[in-house]
């Protein structure tokens, strides 16, 4: 199972800290899975201009190809101005229509205020749905008070990430089984 974890912002450390904990959990509990962390801060990605993702070069091509090859994606995102950051939206814009079909996608969201709790529900999920992802319905929402010096200090947040990782893996396996069963009947 290929899992890609995305740290969706190029500033700050909280999202990176939270997503890194998810990656660590995956590596420890599911050593057979193949995990890649894409920290967008480490890549020089151009804005989408509408071309097929295979027509980009450099980091833009590398990042989009990595995402397209994934079975499961764990998206880490902060909330900026009551929405997802432009860097993350650009990733979606770079990908083709229906890019997330047959992929399970889960979300870990960090924010400076409780007021942002419904932003992933109202803004991120519709994008994932439009792109045909199988979305893990529950997401992890972590406030800035739960971080201290690039560590998560709230055990509850850690437990929630561990559960999210487990749900992501279980659902990915389950959907793969369902799909194999459904496709077996086509006999071609």
């Amino acid at each position, binding site marked *: 199972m290929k899992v890609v974890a995305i740290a969706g912002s190029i500033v700050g450390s909280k999202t990176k800290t939270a997503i890194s904990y998810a990656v660590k959990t995956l590596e420890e509990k599911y050593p057979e899975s193949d995990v890649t962390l894409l920290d967008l801060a480490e890549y020089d990605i151009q804005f989408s201009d509408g*071309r*097929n993702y*295979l*027509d980009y070069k450099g980091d833009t091509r590398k990042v989009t190809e990595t995402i*397209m090859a994934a079975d499961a994606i764990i998206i880490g995102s902060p909330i900026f101005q009551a929405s997802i950051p432009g860097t993350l939206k650009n990733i979606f814009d770079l990908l*083709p229509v229906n890019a997330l079909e047959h992929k399970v996608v889960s979300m870990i969201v960090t924010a400076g205020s409780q007021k942002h709790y419904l932003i992933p529900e109202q803004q991120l999920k519709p994008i994932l749905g439009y792109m045909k992802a199988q979305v893990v319905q529950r997401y992890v929402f972590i406030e800035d008070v739960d971080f201290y010096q690039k560590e998560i200090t709230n055990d509850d947040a850690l437990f929630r990430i561990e559960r999210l990782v487990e749900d992501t893996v279980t659902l990915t396996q389950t959907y793969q089984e369902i799909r194999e069963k459904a*496709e077996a009947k086509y*006999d071609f």
Partner: protein
Amino acid sequence: MEKYRINPNKGLEFGIYTLGGDHLPNPATDERISAAQRIEEIIEFAKLADDVGIDFFSVGESHQDYFTTQAHSVVLSAIAQATKNIKIASSSTIISTLDPVRVYEDFATIDLISKGRAEIIAGRASRVGNFGLLGYDLQDYEELYEEKFDLLLKINEQEYVNWEGGKYRAPLRDAHVLPRPLNGSMPIWRAVGGHPASAVKAGYAGVPIFLATLGGPVSIFKRTIDSYRDALKQAGYDPAEFPVATAGFFYLAETTQQAQREMYPSVNEGMQKTNGRGYPKQHFAQGADKRDVMNVGSPQEIIEKILYQHEMYDHQRYIAQMDFGGIPFDKLRKNIELIGKEVLPAIRKYTAK
């Protein structure tokens, strides 16, 4: 229709196209033939099509990995030499990043070699490797196409061309564009995708369309064709004078299931490599439905599908893509035989007037 060398009394024309001489491994063996062999097979494919009386054969250009006919006009000239009756064209020529004068010179020459069988289908490209490779800016995608397509049409109408005001090309003053095609001009079509917007532009410009219909319900593509004909009317043209051609996946075997089995891995893995996304099995399975555009099945079922499409679209030409994704040549040969023996007689019987 005469201007486009279409005789409606003869019924729906049947043609074959290769996207850009896609050069992909055979999914069953994961082996890829050499570029030289692929090109040789495309020329042989055209000859076989000509031999059984198929109406049309076209070759496209695509400037990225997994393609071989970037210099499609060169391949077409070899086909012109090797065939006798079949119409030959591009599918498509990416006019945006070429010089229309040069394109016209090339295709007029192919028309002379083939004794009046050449046509140009000008498109905008879905993959855009040609822009960087040939020195153009993708930002100018739309404007480049509209400007150069307009000039191409003008060259077709006037032997001495006066043209100016272009952003991407120096003006032409009393420019004598030679050679001329055998009968003075050639059919020039606009290639359009599934969405109505591009088809509507073709309607306003009064040019015939080649519509790509890879998968999905016939009824959706009918809307695009209807929009095109409405646009023709609005611009003062008579839709009865403008042919419509549709293009899509095609594959014949004894049963639908066998056709799906032989074609699916090629379509799925071919799309994955050339477009970045495979073809979902569920959609492919639905493709067998009569109401879906995909013509993959037994000869009898495909005849019925093509006739249904003709009833819905009232189009003048259907072109089939069956060589995609490393389909072995013996299968293509078998397909051509079946087309000649079963499909062509049936289509002509039911659509000729």
